């Protein structure tokens, strides 16, 4: 297994002296669908800002594909790691979606042809090409989120990091974003998502990190999402599937996706 992100004993204090991250260590496998879970205030957003060097750790190390982030390679790192913010209004600033997506490639000093190619590709990847001339404030939240993702894709990163991409979206918006994330992963990108939606995480993730009070409480494949005690100790609620199947664990085991659950049920019904 190759490693995309490696974090070692990361400490971070807020300017007011409060501890945000207290010795965080974990790895993210390359080409994985990694979910970072934790209750509000666990330090998820702060952690994500370390992944492309927007925050500098007070102590500890962040490595991207084995390279330690430092002042010299920060531009390279930001090309490799794209970060999508939770509130798209924090990210979309230009007068049209097109201009906004072009912003990143322009910062890379690409030539005009290459900028245009990247913008078109990124907007088509999130199905926003037809809305490219719209100003951001004329879009729905789901559309804004997709535009913000396009803005990051145009940088052609190997790792895409999204902070709470599902927050406030309606079911259809959530489905659209999930489909985009899957497509990115199929193209070979490592996708890292922070969330506290465990049902979604169980369905989507293949690697899970649980964060609470600035520390990593568990890390591994998604079978850790079936551990009710671990989840509840860390301010999280067990996924619906786990709650449903745990009484029959001896007979059926606990499924880790809807599809698996259906198969198990079919087997005993038929």
């Amino acid at each position, binding site marked *: 297994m190759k490693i995309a992100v490696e974090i070692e004993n990361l400490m971070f204090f807020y300017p007011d002296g409060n501890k945000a991250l207290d010795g965080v260590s974990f790895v993210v496998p390359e080409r994985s669908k990694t979910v970072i879970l934790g209750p509000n205030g666990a330090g998820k957003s702060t952690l994500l800002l370390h992944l492309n060097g927007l925050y500098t750790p007070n102590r500890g190390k962040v490595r991207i594909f084995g390279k330690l982030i430092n002042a010299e390679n920060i531009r390279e790192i*930001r090309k490799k790691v794209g970060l999508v913010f939770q509130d798209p209004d*924090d990210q979309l600033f230009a*007068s049209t979606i097109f201009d906004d997506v072009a912003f990143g490639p322009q*910062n890379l000093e690409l030539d005009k042809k290459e900028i245009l190619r990247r913008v078109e590709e990124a907007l088509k990847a999130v199905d926003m090409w037809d809305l490219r001339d719209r100003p951001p404030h004329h879009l729905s939240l789901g559309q804004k989120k997709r535009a913000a993702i396009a803005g990051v894709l145009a940088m052609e990163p190997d790792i895409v990091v999204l902070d709470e991409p599902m927050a406030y979206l309606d079911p259809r918006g959530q489905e659209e974003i999930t489909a985009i994330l899957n497509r990115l992963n199929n193209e070979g990108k490592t996708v890292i998502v922070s969330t506290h939606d465990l049902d979604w995480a169980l369905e989507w993730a293949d690697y899970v990190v649980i964060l609470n009070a600035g520390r990593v409480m568990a890390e591994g494949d998604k079978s850790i999402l079936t551990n009710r005690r671990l989840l509840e100790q860390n301010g999280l609620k067990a996924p619906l599937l786990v709650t449903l199947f745990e009484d029959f664990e001896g007979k059926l085991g606990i499924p880790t996706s809807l599809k698996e659950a259906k198969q198990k049920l079919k087997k005993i019904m038929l």
Partner: protein
Amino acid sequence: MINVNTIGQYIPGNSLIHRLDPRTKFFTLLVAVFLVFFLDNLVHLGFLLFGVILVTFLAGIKPKMFWQALKPVVFILVLALILQLFFTPGEKLITIGPFKITREGLINSGIVFLRLVVMLLSAYLLTATTSPTELTHGLESLLKPFGRFGLPYGEIALMLTIALRFIPTLTEEAERLIKAQESRGADFYTRGLSKKAQMMLPLIIPLFINAFKRADELAVAMEARGYRIGAPRGKLKPLKFTAKDYLFLFLNLLIAMLFVILKLWGGFPAKF
């Protein structure tokens, strides 16, 4: 709901004037302003007004919108006319009670009227045919030469872009806050000034805090996409003068020259 196109006087369109480079329009306005104060002859100013009306017509702006532009200054316009008409000393024409209208007063008020109207209209034409975004690009490009003296023209343009982008967002936020307070019984339509100010208090703190927080987050998000102040960037849509811009600029200079000659020569109804 407010959007960028409704905050200014901009009237979206696709006329020849709309499609001119914003710098061409800035320059044309400068020429018009120069002529307004250079010319001091009723007939010459009349020609100038005719020219401006012609451009207004070319821009596809209806007289109704025109009136919209003049409305806020009607008070000033009327005041200036009355003062000129009744208080200019000279050869008496008509006497109404204590007031005398003189020949000079009549001519002066005509000149004042024409000057004001030409001035207001040509300034209105710039903002009516150029979107705020284009104005920003135009301003950036006009300020560029001052970059060597330390003027941060790129940052200025970026600031304006951000401002225009977030005016609708913050308006929505303010409306949401007003609704939230109204649902708890606040009355924003009360008459008293101090009472009204009191009602507004719950809006102020969240609006200010959200705006400045958002600014800091925006800076982080821009850094995340590799932006660094002052660093070279790939060019996408540089402003470009086209044939119609050169033609328009040429016409500008030609007309300005004709007017200058007209005045210096002193001919063609010289007695006004």
